[in-house]
């Protein structure tokens, strides 16, 4: 897999100036285009394979899963899904995951973008210190925060509520949001904001009307990354939620193991259900990133 990308790297080095078109939108001479497209296609199929494997496995029996890991299911066991759904209680867990993930994302995006705007455009005392504090948060292995967070949230009484997941999720993702959106804003010219300030929009008006719309591609990136992380988190969800009714999805995915062996037909069925929203979110927000690009180039 590495080789294919190395291959496309090699092509990149070749001269690819093309008459009549901006260089960027047509990177290769037509002669080479089919080859690079072929390489890309093979690479894409290889990266898609795990997803396909997951879906195929979810229709198999355990015997087939181990005996013929790469074959198609000999009979399609649709009831794996029904059983997985019922045994793991996926319905309510799914809803909880949606609530927690979306709330955490909204919080992360709002605070992250606002703070990114402040740190990338304005000066204040201790800016360096604040930024290095944010770096520290990206480096801590989350498992070592479990006990302190548990004790603390127990004391302030938010343990066993949605907030016990939403707030730590947002807190741990904030540095990423600040750095990514901040880096993005740094490369955006300040003209639009200055114009907005002169129009009398004030800081808040400028933030909501100019900065936030400009930062949509970066925010969409954070949406995708944060969604992935929150949706799949196991450690916090395992420890901070006690009430069965508030459990999130990752816990449901791991119930089919007895410590010595795992029922893979049910596990893969549950995983297949859980993976759908992430794919949908990715596809939606990828479009947001690209839309932002069009809007940006019009302005530019």
């Amino acid at each position, binding site marked *: 897999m590495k080789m294919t990308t190395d291959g496309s790297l090699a092509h990149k080095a070749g001269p690819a100036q093309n008459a009549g078109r901006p260089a960027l939108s047509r990177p290769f001479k037509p002669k080479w285009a089919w080859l690079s497209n072929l390489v890309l296609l093979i690479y894409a199929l290889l990266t898609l394979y795990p997803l396909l494997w997951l879906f195929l496995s979810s229709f198999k029996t*355990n*015997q087939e*899963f*181990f*005996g013929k890991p790469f074959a198609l299911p000999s009979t399609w066991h649709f009831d794996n899904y029904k*059983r997985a759904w019922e*045994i793991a209680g996926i319905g309510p867990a799914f809803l909880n995951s949606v609530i927690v993930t979306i709330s955490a994302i909204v919080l992360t995006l709002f605070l992250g973008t606002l703070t990114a705007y402040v740190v990338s455009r304005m000066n204040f005392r201790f800016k360096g210190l604040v930024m290095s504090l944010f770096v520290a948060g990206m480096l801590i292995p989350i*498992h070592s925060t*479990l*006990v*302190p967070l*548990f*004790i*603390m949230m*127990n*004391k*302030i*009484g*938010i*343990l*066993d*509520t949605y907030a016990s997941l939403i707030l730590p999720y947002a807190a741990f993702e904030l540095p990423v949001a600040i750095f990514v959106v901040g880096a993005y804003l740094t490369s955006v010219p300040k003209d639009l904001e200055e114009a907005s300030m002169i129009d009398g929009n004030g800081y808040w008006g400028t933030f909501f009307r100019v900065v936030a719309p400009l930062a949509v591609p970066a925010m969409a990136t954070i949406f995708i990354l944060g969604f992935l992380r929150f949706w799949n988190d*196991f*450690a916090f969800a*395992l*420890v901070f939620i*006690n*009430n*069965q009714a508030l459990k999130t999805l990752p*816990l449901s995915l*791991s*119930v*089919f*193991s*007895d*410590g*010595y*062996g*795992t*029922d893979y037909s*049910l596990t893969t069925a549950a995983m297949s259900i859980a993976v759908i929203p992430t794919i949908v979110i990715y596809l939606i927000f990828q479009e947001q990133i690209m839309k932002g690009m069009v809007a940006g180039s019009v302005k530019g």
Partner: protein
Amino acid sequence: MKKKPVSLTALALAATTLLAACGNDASNNAASSNAASSAPASGSSGASASAPASGEKVKLSIWHNFSGDDLRAQAVRAQIDKFKAAHPEIELDAQAIPPDGYRQRLKTVAAAGEMPDVFFTQSGTSIQEFYDGGLIQPITPLLDKYPEWKNNFMEGALDRLSFDGQAYATPLSGSATSLFFYNKSLFDKYQVKVPTTWDELMTAIKTFNDNKITPISLGNKAAWLAQSSILSSLADRVTGTDWFLKAASQDGASFTDPEFVQALQLFKDLSEAKAFQTGANSLDNTQMEQYFVEGKAAMMIDGSWALTNMAATGTPEQLDQVEVTVLPSLPGGKGDPNSISGGSGGGMALSKTVTGAKLDAALELIYAIGGPEGMQAIVNSNSVVNYKVEPDQAVVTPLFYKAFTLFKSVKLTPVYDAYLTSAAADVINNGLQDLLLTGKPEAVAKKLQDAQAQALGK
């Protein structure tokens, strides 16, 4: 139940305490749904202790890791559900936590001093941690209340769940960790005698290798497997049980003693005789069981959990070929050859904070799960129990029936990691992986000795 680091830091955190002040009410609510210690232990439970029929419900929480769809998990959950139905006066909060995260969850709440009332814990080192931490109380009164139940446990079944003569849990399952499985059609086909001595084993290995059949299936990626299944029994054959118990307590024997080094050397000999498939260190136990049940290997030394795993992944025809016996004997060894390493699995432990009516309810719950009825249900789910009970042959698999009959007829010897400290168990696990590569028995023995001595403070 506060530990020093906790309370000190809590004080130091001005920001948090500030929040804590306004969040106190909510905290109590959360704690009571948690049903851990504080709220129920105060006023209400005292009242209901004297008058349980007053209409006030007893709140009880239980944590376990029987979360899956396997038969044993279903059996245990069914017992809990029965208890719930039979006791409307008890508000039972039963939590089935996935096994992968169970220990992490339990450790975290233990560190914070917020234990559930009743919880599943492994035997040996795990339950000892809770005992040492003063978090659990004995269930001896319950055993005394039902003497018939108590007397039906196999000899030594409660040993690794007891401290100072008091039982803190009863085993929900037993385990035989070193069952010697073999594929009888492969033995027939190549006319190999099922080995009863070490020499016969080496001959069998050679014959199978000559015929391009893997002699012994081993998947030691999870490192504990070779220790728990092979070394525990093999070393016992060489050193005898007494030596190991002394070495484990670092009292009169050391892991650097020649007999233990010899046991490690025997393991290394197996590896050098190409007894195991290539890449044994990168396969997991499911893969190794699969490999064996498909007839690609002639033998396998594995625990009773393999009975369920093989039943789940093998066809009935494949399973028909599988026979089970004890590991071959070692001439001159000090151990009893008619033995299998094994012991008690975990059981339901009882939090120390539980008192009054709640205590009565908790004990009844423990009995409902691990009592005679529970034992029968668990053995019928193809799980080994250390309890004198006859599995229902109409329900269990033939292979399980064979293995359980064998289990009842042999002596049990200690499993290494149930007696070693967890740090030392980690060392020997990694050491055995190393022996499969380039490691030297003497060096591994030395490391194990150092780790055990250090962990015990000797």
